[in-house]
């Protein structure tokens, strides 16, 4: 009567998607904070800090883009016209 396989599928899908989204956003937050922490040094011309700042900031934005993609995928799922 109860479709346990559907329930299991929903559980696995929910945990997987939520983990991917939260991991990417939270890592993005961490990298962005890293970058912001050395912005002052980088502006003063510290070469090491400039490189560190660049890679952390780039990584953060790439991860925020993953979150953005997830939001777009959510909209895709919500609007039936897109997938039916």
């Amino acid at each position, binding site marked *: 009567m*109860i479709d346990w396989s559907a329930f299991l*599928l929903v559980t696995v899908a929910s945990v997987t998607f*939520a983990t991917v989204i*939260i991991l990417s*956003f*939270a890592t993005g937050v961490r990298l962005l*904070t890293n970058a912001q922490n050395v912005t002052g040094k980088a502006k003063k011309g510290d070469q090491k800090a400039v490189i560190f700042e660049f890679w952390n900031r780039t990584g953060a934005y790439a991860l925020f883009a993953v979150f953005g993609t997830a939001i777009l995928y959510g909209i895709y799922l*919500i609007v*039936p016209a897109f997938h039916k």
Partner: protein
Amino acid sequence: MFNRNAIFFAARFDFHFSSFGKGPMDPLTIVVLVIALALFFDFTNGFHDTANAMATPIATGALKPRTAVIIAAVMNLVGAFLSTEVAKAISVSLINEDVQIVPEMVFAGLTGAILWNLTTWFLGLPSSSSHALFGGLVGAALVYAGVAGVNFPAILQKVVIPALMAPLLAGIVAFLATKIAYIVTARSQHARETTGIGTGRNSFKVGQIFSSSLLALSHGTNDAQKTMGVITLVLVAAGLQSSGDHVELWVVVAAALAIALGTYMGGWRIIRTMGAGLAEIKPAQGFAAEVAGGVTILASSNLGFALSTTQVASGAIIGSGMGRKGGAVRWNKAGQIVVGWLLTLPAAGLVGALSSLLVLFVPGGLIIDLIITLAVTVSIFQISRRNKIGAHNVVSEVEGASEVIQSARQIRIREARAAKVAKALAAAEKKAAKKAAAKKGKK
């Protein structure tokens, strides 16, 4: 299609309205009343569920209360136009197919749904509007068609079991998401002291704006359709629409506007419960709860069974409350909410059944029922004004909640200190008395 029908509809309405009050009520008048009641239910559905998407961003300060309800209202309005899939397959599957649905029955069911929605809103309890609607309709069907008219296995499968699963699943996902968010962004005491680096967890507020908007959009596509489905059901039952395989444009527009207006009203009492009553929510938790809620809702609705948005959102908030170290969940509040969920179906059903009895067996019962519903509605709104909660004080109430806890702790500390001082004083006094006694003895 839309224009022709609307004119046809208006003409019949005018023609028949002159007979209002003479003898048994005209079928078309009843249809108009049912549609009005359905739109009012849609309106209550709107403000009842604003909290699902907007309680956490309001609580963490990611969005100002007014901005939050405006975004939610727009998302619900847009969402209502996106799809009519659910409306076509309206959940009358809970009522057996051979039961002939008459507008009066839907009328009685709607009164049950509306009154339960208003009661739970007044108490600040987030309960499923869909379950209230199902409950009201099932209660009415019990009176009209007896026990045989209701599909009890379907109620168990489509309402009761999902109601148990929704908060549990969303709670677990939100718990994990919160843990991950906190572990990933954690900074050691050493790092914070030596470099002055923060955790950056306030950045989650930006994510919250997107996740809450998505939740509101998803709500609009689902919930407005239930009203569209009910109106279409009545139009078909009254012979005004040939079949239920499509939804008239004016029905879509009316339902979309009603739910958006309701959402804009805010339902601040429920926002306060979900934003501050269940757990103290910080930005990382709010974001984790919304991601968990959104993912759970989208996964379930796309993979076979629909879960109640309200129950998912409440479960997610509890899960995120448990996920933060030192975060406390107010279990007595959570318990009250669960009791509200358990009561939703039977309570709305009881009112739906009583309304049906009134409509069926008392002459002029439908009008009496309408007057009672209006009177109760007006009195609930009047009583609620005594301790009004709105955009102006929902946030201070949210902050107030933590202040109360803080001051309680401070009071305990103060009391402990006072007791220590009193003890020391008493000891000193005793010593002094002893000394005095010894001096006296010497003399």
